[in-house]
């Protein structure tokens, strides 16, 4: 197996007496789409927050592209090529779609202590934004304010913003959340395209999507990894079936 792009070792994070991340270890190899699933409260978002730096672990280490990033703040991780989308849409509501993406491109194009020239007239930033918007199918919505985009469009814009930072690794926190059937299908198709270019860690509740997309799946329960493997192995794993109990028919019937 290739050297992992992301290596998480013995990560621990507790809130009061509750261990939200309990001695968790995980490898993501370049090029794979690695899905993380688990029942509600399994600690998926806590894990993502530690990977992106919003939350610091109590102990354990995180390595990204051969470099330890355990204590780095979010903006430095982004510089290294770690991008995320948020579970609850997190955009700049009073900016246009194009502005949102152009800012992401700007963040990775030198420092921004430039006080004079108009940023909106910088051709290469605008072009980069337009390209990322086109990737997610929002090219024609570039000049619309984010607050006026539909929920589905905002989810797609989240992806475009992440892509504009030219990431090596894309952390997607429930990109399907709140999407209708057709919008979900579009998102799955989009992710199928993106996975060819970038390594993806996908946290998702939509089992159908996960089993359709993932190369490997890691199952979390109470902050611990109870299983990790390809979709077939996970589908047939007894412990996973037990963890999902009521949901096991979902796990068994798709893919």
């Amino acid at each position, binding site marked *: 197996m290739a050297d992992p792009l992301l290596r998480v070792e013995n990560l621990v994070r507790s809130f009061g007496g509750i261990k939200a991340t309990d001695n968790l270890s995980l490898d993501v190899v370049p090029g794979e789409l690695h899905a993380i699933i688990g029942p509600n409260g399994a600690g998926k978002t806590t894990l993502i927050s530690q990977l992106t730096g919003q939350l610091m672990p109590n102990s354990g280490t995180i390595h990204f592209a051969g470099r330890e990033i355990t204590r780095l703040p979010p*903006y430095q991780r982004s510089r290294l090529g770690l991008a995320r989308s948020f579970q609850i849409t997190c*955009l*700049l509501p009073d900016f246009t779609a194009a502005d949102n993406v152009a800012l*992401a491109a700007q*963040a990775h194009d030198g420092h*921004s202590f430039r*006080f*004079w020239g108009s*940023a909106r007239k910088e051709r290469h930033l605008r072009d980069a934004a337009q390209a990322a918007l086109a990737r997610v199918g929002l090219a024609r919505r570039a000049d619309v304010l984010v607050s006026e985009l539909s929920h589905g469009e905002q989810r797609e814009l989240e992806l475009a*913003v992440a892509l504009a930072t030219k990431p090596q690794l894309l952390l997607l926190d429930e990109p399907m959340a709140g999407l209708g059937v057709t919008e979900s299908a579009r998102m799955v198709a989009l992710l199928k395209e993106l996975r060819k270019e970038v390594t993806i860690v996908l946290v998702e509740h939509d089992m159908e999507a996960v089993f359709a997309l993932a190369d490997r799946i890691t199952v979390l329960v109470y902050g611990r990894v109870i299983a990790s493997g390809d979709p077939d192995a996970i589908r047939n794993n007894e412990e996973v079936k037990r963890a999902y109990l009521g949901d096991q028919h979902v796990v068994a019937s798709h893919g």
Partner: protein
Amino acid sequence: MKSYINARNVIVALVALGLTLLPAYSALTGNIFILTLFTRIVIFALAAASLNLIMGYGGMMSFGHAAYLGIGGYAVGVLAHEGIGSGFIQWPVALALSALYALVIGALSLRTRGVYFIMITLAFAQMAYYIASGLSRYGGDDGLTIYKRSTFGGLIDLSNRVQFYYLCLACLFGGVYLIWRIVNSRFGMVVQGVRSNEQRMQAIGFHANRYRLVCFVISGTICGLAGALLANNTDFISPAGMYWTRSGELMVMVVFGGMGSLFGPVLGTIVFLLLEEVLSQFTEYWALIMGPLLLLIVLFARGGIMGLLGRLSRG
């Protein structure tokens, strides 16, 4: 192509034109008072515009902006008192001290957000106020008279009303132009992005506080210039000029005119100070009328005067 001819832009252009022609009007009618009044208005407009940069565009509710008026003023007054009358020394010192103060205060207070930020900027400004009150060599509580305005080696005579007015106006227009460039620059986009959603800006790779701090320093420095102008205008400095009520008035001027609009603070200052002038001729309780007016603007005219004009423009 957007049309630039609408009610808002026409009014902004007329106001700018009016400010430029005011000395001519004053000379024709022999009305010196109006020139004195508008010199004061123009200086406060510059201070309000600088506050708008952090408050309107940066989302940083500083409740201590009067401190810069004081620092800029004291730099001029103290140096004049010590026999250094040259504006080429006084003014750079005023700007540098304001920038330094903003850097220190900003580095400490930008660790906080919201109400705590308001309180900590207020606390620092009050400290500056009490320090000024304690400067017994420079008049303490009573303040200090400036016997000679800043000199610029014969380039410009600040004691000449018209020349001084145009200097203030040039500073205002220059300041607004600078803020316009900044707001639309890469830097300005980042600062406004952080106002809109700080978490998002961190996630895409911006060290938010570094940009906030630089913005805070730029704003403070511009306001320090207003302070140097104000001291020359009144020929007097005192701690009273940096009391927290003065910071509050600056905030009201910005909100009146429209937070986050380029020319709004200028209109807000004109309306605020004119109202104060007119109302105080009728009653010493003019604040009783000003207060409800501010309430009405906040409740019914989001975006202040500029917001109202914008809605007019769209019909």
